[in-house]
């Protein structure tokens, strides 16, 4: 109806255009903090930074604050995993196959200077320095569940921005169907590069629409600080609806291709690790069940493992990407 009268009552615009309460409240918090900080001078930025961060900083590395993300599904309210558990228990095969190895061995990784080369089917191929990437888009804090293919999980507060921001900048050609992420493979600083478990460098990839999904994060930090080496410093992918190994760490090259890239674990055992590797409780790994998971550091010693959720609980956000796809065949 073009001419509105009181009889129409109050008509909403699209519900997506209504500012969520959390957003305007945080803006007001901001204003208050800035107003208070104007008197405090140097104190202001310090206060604002703390207001931004959702989780207390562990105080180990340089701060990397991010504003609360407004992306749907990006802020789970589950209990965040302890920083100590997150940094002493993870897989990063370049530093050893045991989950305690990365935390012990990754101190040798050299993250400055760092460049990421973007190449392949794009209009604007470029070599980005880490500093360029950090400035490319505003940092957001996102609290994601992480589900490892091995059957354990964590809740981690990442800092970064949607991968789509970078993709838009380099303008992929129409023919680009996949994005490939190549990790650093430097035998001098990564003692297990060259071991026969996997082919090096570690390569992971996403379909273009997956990489463009706002939840696919280009991550630079966690817990309000820059990434620790063992977690894939200085820049990595975080794809929360897929098993952890799909998120490449310490990325040095991003390549746009028209053919499905050969990815590290898929090459090592294609019957066990599919290209998609979406978290799926109904499709077991050939050697173990994927129906349940152990949340690290949370439940008591004798607690039952929790049920794994379809797409790791991100079905509402990413389910439509796979409409019509047989997830048993395309595991």
């Amino acid at each position, binding site marked *: 109806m073009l001419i509105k009268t009181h009889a129409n009552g109050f008509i909403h615009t699209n519900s997506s255009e209504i500012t969520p309460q959390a957003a305007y409240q945080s803006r007001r918090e901001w204003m208050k903090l800035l107003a208070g900080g104007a008197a405090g001078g140097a104190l202001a930025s310090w206060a604002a930074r703390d207001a931004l961060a959702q989780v207390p900083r562990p105080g180990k590395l340089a701060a990397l604050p991010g504003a609360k993300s407004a992306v749907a599904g990006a802020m789970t309210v589950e209990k965040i995993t302890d920083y100590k*558990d997150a940094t002493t228990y993870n897989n990063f095969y370049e530093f050893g196959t045991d989950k305690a190895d990365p935390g012990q061995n990754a101190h040798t990784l050299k993250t400055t200077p760092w460049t990421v080369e973007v190449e392949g089917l794009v209009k604007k191929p470029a070599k980005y320095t880490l500093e360029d990437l950090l400035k490319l888009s505003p940092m957001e804090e996102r609290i994601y569940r992480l589900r490892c293919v091995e059957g354990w999980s964590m809740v981690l507060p990442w800092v970064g921005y949607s991968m789509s921001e970078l993709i838009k900048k380099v303008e992929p050609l129409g023919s680009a169907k996949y994005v490939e992420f190549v990790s650093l493979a430097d035998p001098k600083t990564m003692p297990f590069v060259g071991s026969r478990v996997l082919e090096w460098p570690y390569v992971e990839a996403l379909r273009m629409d997956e990489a463009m999904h706002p939840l696919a994060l280009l991550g630079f930090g966690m817990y309000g600080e820059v990434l620790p080496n063992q977690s894939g410093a200085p820049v990595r992918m975080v794809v929360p609806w897929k098993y952890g190994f799909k998120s490449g760490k310490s990325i040095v090259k991003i390549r746009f291709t028209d053919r499905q890239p050969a990815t590290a674990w898929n090459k090592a055992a294609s019957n066990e690790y599919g290209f998609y590797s979406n978290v799926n409780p109904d499709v077991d790994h050939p*050697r173990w069940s994927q129906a349940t998971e152990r949340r690290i550091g949370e439940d008591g010693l*004798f607690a039952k493992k929790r049920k794994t959720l379809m797409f790791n609980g991100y079905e509402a956000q990413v389910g439509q990407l796979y409409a019509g796809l047989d997830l048993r065949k395309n595991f």
Partner: protein
Amino acid sequence: MNKLLLHRAAKPLLFALCLLPILWLIARVATNHAGANPQEYLIRGTGDWSLRFLCIVLTVTPLRTIVGWPALARMRRMFGLFMYFYVVLHLLSYSWFDMGLDFGDIAKDIAKRPFILVGFAAFVLLTPLAATSFNRAIKFMGAKRWQALHKAVYAIAGLGILHFFWMRAGKHNFNEVAIYAAILGVLLGWRVLQFIKKKAQMPAQNGRGVLSK
């Protein structure tokens, strides 16, 4: 050494030593030193010690013969029962921590995962050995039959190392597997050598051997 082994305190002392690993594992978990995944730590720790006690118990006879410590034989049963103790703890921690004591799920898991099946088979095979380890059982069965039954430990050794190998195969991480396999290989190889030597002596003693057939 032999005299020391015959000492009254030797057996209780070794008994206490054999309990140290489980006390250590529990203490690490209780004091938050077991890493981010204490359940996994306990499952793996008890598995490691099962393998180690398998090696210990299989070392008794070669050591007794080669070095000449007959008194060591007194300890063999205790070592064997401790191996069973750690195997049971290993199975129990897997059933409890990994499977939430859901016996339906455990049965399905045993059927689904070959390496679990192999480990479970080793436990099943080991159970009658543990159950017949008291003197009256030996008497009841007769030494020959008892000995024949307890030769099953060689098969159990094979299953145990296969279980470990398969578990590590996922990460192609075979360094530790190779160490245990080498130790078990030497211990079992020594027995094969003894057997061949014995066989070789037999026809000579009997005058007519296998060759006359």
